[in-house]
């Protein structure tokens, strides 16, 4: 796996199944995000094969903030997560729009931002914005959830909340793959760990 024909990861032989929460750890620049981006189709698979058995993928990117030139509220950004589940005709139905609003409200409640739906994203702290992006991934009702450093900038209390959310998702049948520098923060959810080093992916003993 790599970019522009240059491999960054070699001999990758892993599988992530439903009801698993797999953490990927490693030093900066080791290729953790490349593994995630390969699953998303944003990095090249230069040899072998990669199979993603579901189109319902939720993704939380590694981003310090989601700066919006034109003001956008938390609710508006999180609602974007519902778009893979809808189409212009469906959106004409009041029942569909109500279901979307309820899903957004539930996701915001899960990540502790229930009272921030009408707040402009720019007014949130970095950690709060990261939680909003998690909510955006959750409203998509994913079967595969990919998270890149979801706890960066998040306070300890909400790291525990996030761990509980991921564990709940896992138990409900979602496959979770999370890149993290802080596996201890998500220990309550993680079922297996992988370590990326020297361009290879290895299993971390329990």
């Amino acid at each position, binding site marked *: 796996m790599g970019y522009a024909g240059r491999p960054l990861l070699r001999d990758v032989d892993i599988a992530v199944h439903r009801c698993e929460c797999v953490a990927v750890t490693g030093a900066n620049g080791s290729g953790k995000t490349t593994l995630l981006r390969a699953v998303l189709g944003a990095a090249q698979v230069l040899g072998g094969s990669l199979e993603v058995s579901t189109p319902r993928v939720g993704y939380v*990117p590694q981003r310090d903030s989601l700066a*919006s030139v034109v*003001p956008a509220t938390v609710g508006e*950004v999180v609602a974007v997560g519902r*778009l893979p589940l809808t189409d212009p005709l469906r959106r004409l139905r009041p029942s569909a729009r109500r279901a979307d609003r309820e899903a957004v409200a539930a996701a915001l409640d899960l990540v502790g931002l229930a009272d921030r739906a009408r707040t402009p994203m720019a007014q949130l702290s970095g950690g709060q914005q990261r939680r909003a*992006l998690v909510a955006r991934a959750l409203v998509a009702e994913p079967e595969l959830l990919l998270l890149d450093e979801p706890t960066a900038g998040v306070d300890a209390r909400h790291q525990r909340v996030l761990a509980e959310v991921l564990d709940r998702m896992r138990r409900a049948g979602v496959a979770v793959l999370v890149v993290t520098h802080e596996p201890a923060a998500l220990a309550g959810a993680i079922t297996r760990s992988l370590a990326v080093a020297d361009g290879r992916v290895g299993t971390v003993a329990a």
Partner: protein
Amino acid sequence: MSDLLTVLDYDFMRRALLAAALVGVAAPLVGTFLVQRGLSLVGDGLGHVALAGVAAGVLTGTAPRWTALVAAVGAALLVEAVRTRGRTGGDVALAVVFYGGIAGGVVLMSLAPAGTTTNLEGYLFGAITTTSPGDVRVFAVLAAVLLVVVTVLRPWLFAVAVDEEHARAAGLPTRALTSALAVLTAVTVVLSMRTVGLLLISALMVLPVAAAQRVCRSFGPVVVAGSAVGLVASVGGVTVSAAAGTPSGGTIVLLALAAFALAVLVGGLRRRGLSRSWAGTATRGARP
């Protein structure tokens, strides 16, 4: 006031006001997404290319609005292809397309046979009082198409504008959406060239949005408020220019600038009022 009202007595002024209203509402609709994506000046560049299309129309005896539309749409899709492929020097490629367009347009215009009416100045700076009944019908259809497409696709265009990486990862058709926005921008440029001219078109797409985002807290209201500001600036600008004898394109843009300045003032006063309210609350809370 009576002088202002008498402008409505003339057919050409009623057509001009109607054309201004259509453009004033439509241009900021598309402009909101361009501003969000950091592409505020792409309308300016497409205007340059549209001039080459106008020149081709003049030389071939084809209605310039259609040849301008073909040129602008082609350039918009080319620019989008360059951007998405992420080639180094993408901004250089854009400069080549845009400046090649305006240079080509000026040179092609000079090749028109002697006696051919080119009206170059009108295309560059606008000539809304020359709007014909046929022009109004075309404007109405183009504006209606813009309004319907933006309204239907707004959530998807917003998703791509705010976070294209996530939209792609979520399986949204990002390439089709960004190409659609490029085509909508080209249509807006051609729609607006008679109103404010090809050199000022970006102003009408961007300034009303810039004003709206100073006073609105969320994306939906910015879209609506931007069109409202665009409508007032366009119709107001044509009216004032008729009364004062000033060029309509420049007058419209100056009114849009005035709206932006007013929005900056109002937004600043609101934030100061909110700050004082929070400070007062904190002070009352601190009292024993």
